[in-house]
């Protein structure tokens, strides 16, 4: 399988990366080279094998729903580029 520049553009959009043309072309080359190597697993016989989501088998882990100590609002906001009135400040997402 090989990936077109149009597909690279689409994947970059999905990944929220604003890439310039040079980076797109360089990533297209790298992705195609890697995808070439990835073809080896297409021939592995995996019929009847359940996919593994983890390295060790763990069932659902349950915990009692008990409130604990969590971060204060000030500390949670302490690394934000912009905050106001105890909230993260983001660009407007709803138009007037």
């Amino acid at each position, binding site marked *: *399988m090989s*990936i077109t520049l149009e*597909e*690279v553009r689409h*994947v*970059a959009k*999905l*990944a*929220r*990366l*604003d*890439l310039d043309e040079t*980076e797109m072309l*360089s*990533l297209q080359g*790298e*992705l195609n*080279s*890697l995808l070439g*190597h*990835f073809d*080896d*697993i*297409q021939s*592995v016989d*995996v019929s009847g*094998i*359940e*996919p*593994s*989501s*983890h*390295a*060790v088998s*763990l069932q659902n*882990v349950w*915990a009692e729903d008990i409130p604990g100590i969590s*971060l204060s609002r000030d*500390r*949670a906001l*302490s*690394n*934000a*580029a*912009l905050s106001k009135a105890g909230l*993260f400040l*983001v*660009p*407007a*997402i709803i138009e007037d």
Partner: protein
Amino acid sequence: MITNLTAAELSRQLKDRQLSAIEVAEAFLDRIETTDSNYGAYLLVDRKGALAAAERAQKLIDADASGPLTGVPIAIKDNMSTEGVETTCASKILKGYVPPFDATVVERCKAAGMVMLGKTNLDEFAMGTSTENSAFQLTRNPWDTTRSPGGSSGGSAAAVAAELAPLSLGSDTGGSIRQPAALCGIVGYKPTYGRVSRYGLIAFGSSLDQIGPFARTVEDAALLAETISGHDPLDSTSLAAPPIRPKFDNVNLKGKRVALPKELLADANAPAVTREVEKAIEALRREGVIFEEISLPSIQYGVTTYYIIAPAEASSNLARFDGIRFGPRSEGEGHIGVVERTRAEGFGHEVKSRIMIGTYALSAGYYDAYYLRAQQVRAKMQMEFAEAFHKFDAILSPTSPVTAFKIGELSGDPMALKLLDYCTIPANMGGMPGISLNCGFDDGGLPVGLQLLGAPMEDEKLLEMARGVEQVLRDARRRPPLA
């Protein structure tokens, strides 16, 4: 000299009042200040914090309330959260980020009275095998400063090898502890997945990531492993198992059965690596170890499987870096524009490349052919390993197919860099514990690493064996030509 003592020796001398915790901390801090410019192991040195911790440790020692590592310094890879101390993952996207909490491993080290010296360099977000992908600095191999220390935990490995810390923590997603340990001639140990909490480790590939120690001896690595392991309710993948506590009093290699997978002892390895590993096998055979060559055919798909699963998980994990809640924020058009610009300017090339691979492998139309299939191949690999561990106590191989390479030598060849993980990836796929030990040197005097893998949950057994192997192979007189 204080800085070339092992952690166990430091601990003994601290308890016997031959040394004070402050003296020890100062010795390391001074050595870092005068010599780390040669190595670039540390991204940040917390002198003030370290001295305050040393004072607290000395009080514990004075009150006879100390544990085995009280007052012993440690360096932490900069992808583990440290409260009040900048944590960057060697990425511009986290420049200036100061975590409001400690990772569980950091909290446990502090509770044990350990002294954190600083944060070590890594490939950005632990993505790499040479530490050349750090956004901030290069790290150099203490055995030859024109060469790479390996990666991604290159800073933590170089710090211990250059005697800038007696112990350090790294993280291992596909070999990032064991490979740099091999290239720097020290011990690097990745515990069973789930035995050490990942809470506060900035996630890369969540089903593969595991924190573990670097040390100069197996005994030291085990002391640190015991300190950081054990169940943690804050990590849902943490196993309900007790801390890792090997017993070293009666280590005996005689009659141990060790498998040699032919896929890992292939011609692709550098001749000097093959030569030194074969010499080690001979030496161990003389001690009564029984070796048998086996085949684990799925290993050949390890690199592909890894480079689908790890980037897929990374593309999801790294979605949180959007400039809103932490890290610098770039200017852009509207909400999406801000996020897209922040990520484009904040991430380095390798990270973008892996996010792209992962997003592609998870996207509609390709999910079955890549991600799902990779998970099935992983399951197949796990079955092969489980069968091998029915019959064998351990699996032995080189850790890295090559010794330390020149800085820049492989940077133009992404696939060559990725193949460096060939021998280490299977342990992450199978969740099993793995340890790298020095077993010799190539003709240029560069260290060669030997890897032992154990069955999942049998960390104690693996460490006990590694201790036995170390007693046969280690040449403690051989040290890097340090500044």
